[in-house]
């Protein structure tokens, strides 16, 4: 039993390091914060963490197959721009039209009310998933290296986002914004469920921020079942030894498609939340690039190997949270905020260098080459 635990710990040493580092940093942050350990701080942090955490999950799945997805930031931005049209919550619905090549096409009216918001959410997530599916098709059927394929599709998605929102704008339903970016209690009172969030049994949970609840929900409902499915295991197998996985009759092509599609879905979730949080759509190219690069950093810090085959999306969530907590520190300690990327870069290099310590034990240089 103890032996089993030791093996499990050794297999997940990256994840354990990330969790411990995050716990230490977050504890320090709350101790130094004048209003530390309060639900208000937690809610604010949750809102800031969610989008990057989703992108980190998105990045993890292709990385497990040993392919990078450079389009996650672009998918996030594109979905956010769609959301700023579809989730306006304007009474009487939102008229949609398409102006392209001098043509003016009316696309009907998008429904309003709760139905409209649900439909809009589904459409946005579907767009994200479709973008991921296209990535998967280009990688699998186009037989293009993932890094090149997603660099290209990412540029296309950014182009679509710029087409939709040449300037930042749009609007998100206020109630939706309020419900999603506060605590579960506020969520319940906005939706008028559980006696407006005052039900006795609900009280112990009411302080939990919605983004954290969503994060756990998505991890449990989407990631864990996927990881345990045949496809999920095939994703890991493809990453650790594609040839062996092929010989064993695993569905390699479907595993890769699933990896990129799932990445699109996760990135879509991140984009949807970012749009809801900022109440607007913004085709911000530097932001998309920064999110993509940070997602890769999160994955590495979270203990997933870029060679593929080991790691998990849960670790990446903690990697994303570590990156975000570092940025929180700049607010409470008097450090020039412009130095923030410096610490992000140093943490990233430190994380990969720890992983590279094994190099010192290698006696024969040839073992280094894989």
């Amino acid at each position, binding site marked *: 039993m103890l032996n089993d635990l030791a093996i499990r710990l050794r297999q997940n040493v990256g994840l354990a390091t990330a969790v411990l580092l995050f716990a230490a940093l977050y504890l320090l942050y709350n101790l130094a914060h004048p209003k530390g350990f309060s639900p208000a701080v937690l809610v604010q942090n949750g809102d800031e963490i969610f989008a990057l955490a989703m992108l980190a999950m998105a990045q993890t799945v292709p990385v497990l197959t040993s392919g990078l997805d450079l389009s996650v930031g672009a998918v996030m931005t594109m979905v956010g721009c769609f959301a700023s049209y579809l989730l306006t919550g304007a009474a009487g619905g939102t008229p949609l039209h398409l102006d392209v090549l001098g043509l003016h096409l009316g696309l009907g009216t998008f429904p309003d009310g709760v139905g409209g918001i649900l439909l809009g959410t589904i459409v946005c997530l579907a767009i994200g998933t479709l973008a991921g599916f296209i990535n998967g098709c280009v990688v699998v059927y186009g037989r293009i290296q993932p890094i*090149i394929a997603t660099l290209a599709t990412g540029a296309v998605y950014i182009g679509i986002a710029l087409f939709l929102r040449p300037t930042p704008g749009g609007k998100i339903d206020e109630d939706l914004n309020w419900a999603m970016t506060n605590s579960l209690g506020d969520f319940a009172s906005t939706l008028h469920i559980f006696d407006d969030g005052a039900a006795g049994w609900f009280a112990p949970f009411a302080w939990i921020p919605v983004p954290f609840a969503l994060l756990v929900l998505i991890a449990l409902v989407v990631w864990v079942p996927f990881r345990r499915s045949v496809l999920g295991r095939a994703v890991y197998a493809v990453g650790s030894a594609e040839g062996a996985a092929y010989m064993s009759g695993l569905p390699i092509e479907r595993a890769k498609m699933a990896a990129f599609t799932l990445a699109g879905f996760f990135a879509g979730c991140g984009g949807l939340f970012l749009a809801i949080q900022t109440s607007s759509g913004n085709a911000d190219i530097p932001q998309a690039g920064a999110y993509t690069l940070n997602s890769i950093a999160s994955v590495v810090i979270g203990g997933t190997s870029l060679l593929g085959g080991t790691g998990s999306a849960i670790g990446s969530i903690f990697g994303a949270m570590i990156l975000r907590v570092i940025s929180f520190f700049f607010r409470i300690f008097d450090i020039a905020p412009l130095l923030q990327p410096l610490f992000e870069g140093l943490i990233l290099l430190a994380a990969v260098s720890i992983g590279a310590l094994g190099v010192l034990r290698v006696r024969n240089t040839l073992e280094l080459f894989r």
Partner: protein
Amino acid sequence: MQSIKSNALEPTRPELAALSPGRAVLRLLPVYGLPVLTVLLIVFFSLVLPDTFPTWLNARSILADKSIVALLALAATLPMMAGRIDLTVGFGIVMWHILAISFQVKYGMPWPLAILLVVACAGLVGLINGVLVEVAQVDAFVATLGTGTILYALALWHTDGRQVIGTLPPGFLAINSASLFGIPIPAFYVLGLALLLWIVSERLPIGRFIYAIGANEKAAALNGIPVRAYVIGVFIASGLITGLAGCVLGAKLRIGQANVGLDFLLPALVGAFLGSTTIKPGRVNVWGSVFGILILAVGISGIQLFGGAFFVEPLFNGTTLVVAIALAAFAQRRRTVVKPPPAGPQAAPAPSESAKAANAT
């Protein structure tokens, strides 16, 4: 550690010799597809927009605008030949153009010394990258992402988020604004550098070694190629070129500002990847990178003269890359399908012998 795979798709000499002239042209067409397409695009836009496109002004503006991206694409091409990706080309140029200006404005250095110092710093960062990638065995993507982020932070910190402004000597400004035979001088930097890199990569043993490392690191090491030294070397070279590009950008913008940001990273990588579909398909190569940047520049300029909106630029970059690579891969696959099986008495025993050898070992 390898980040990019290299798979040569270009026709070999014996293969071309075996084909009839007509089929050889067909076989070579996809190989030189990108340059041909560039010429076709130029002809097309010249016919459609006779007043604005085929003008000296437009040609000059394309060359002046895209030369820096082309320099960066060449800087990115070198490590890619060895199978490594270098993201510091995008982050570095932010730092180097700021330093090139602030060395002169804040510290009163003469401009040749400023340029020399910037290029030396850039080479040093290249060395750090090389050591991280090859000695510490960190994945090149992550290592250069880390050093790049740090460089970017240092640039922000150095400028305090503001622009670095000051009067610059005309000699420094001339490295961008001068022109030779009426052509902006940065275009000659690209030409000269491309020629140099072409000779090094295609005509000297060094180039063969670097490509060999990119194709199969282990085999290269077993053949006695000093992998570590060459990989560190390409990173230093890439750093030096990025430093030069930074100086040209500084002379062009005349102010140093950190929010130039990642504007240069993606176009440079797209250019290099696009270049890997042509001339030497399947591998990044020097002229391919130059033509990759050129076709994007011509296409985007033409579309913009048409009155296309600014969102066209990323769309065009992305679509061109997907289509070009898919076509190159398609041409390769169709060739392998069409090629008749190697029949005949000599071909048959070969597999059985290798099978015997496999059994024996």
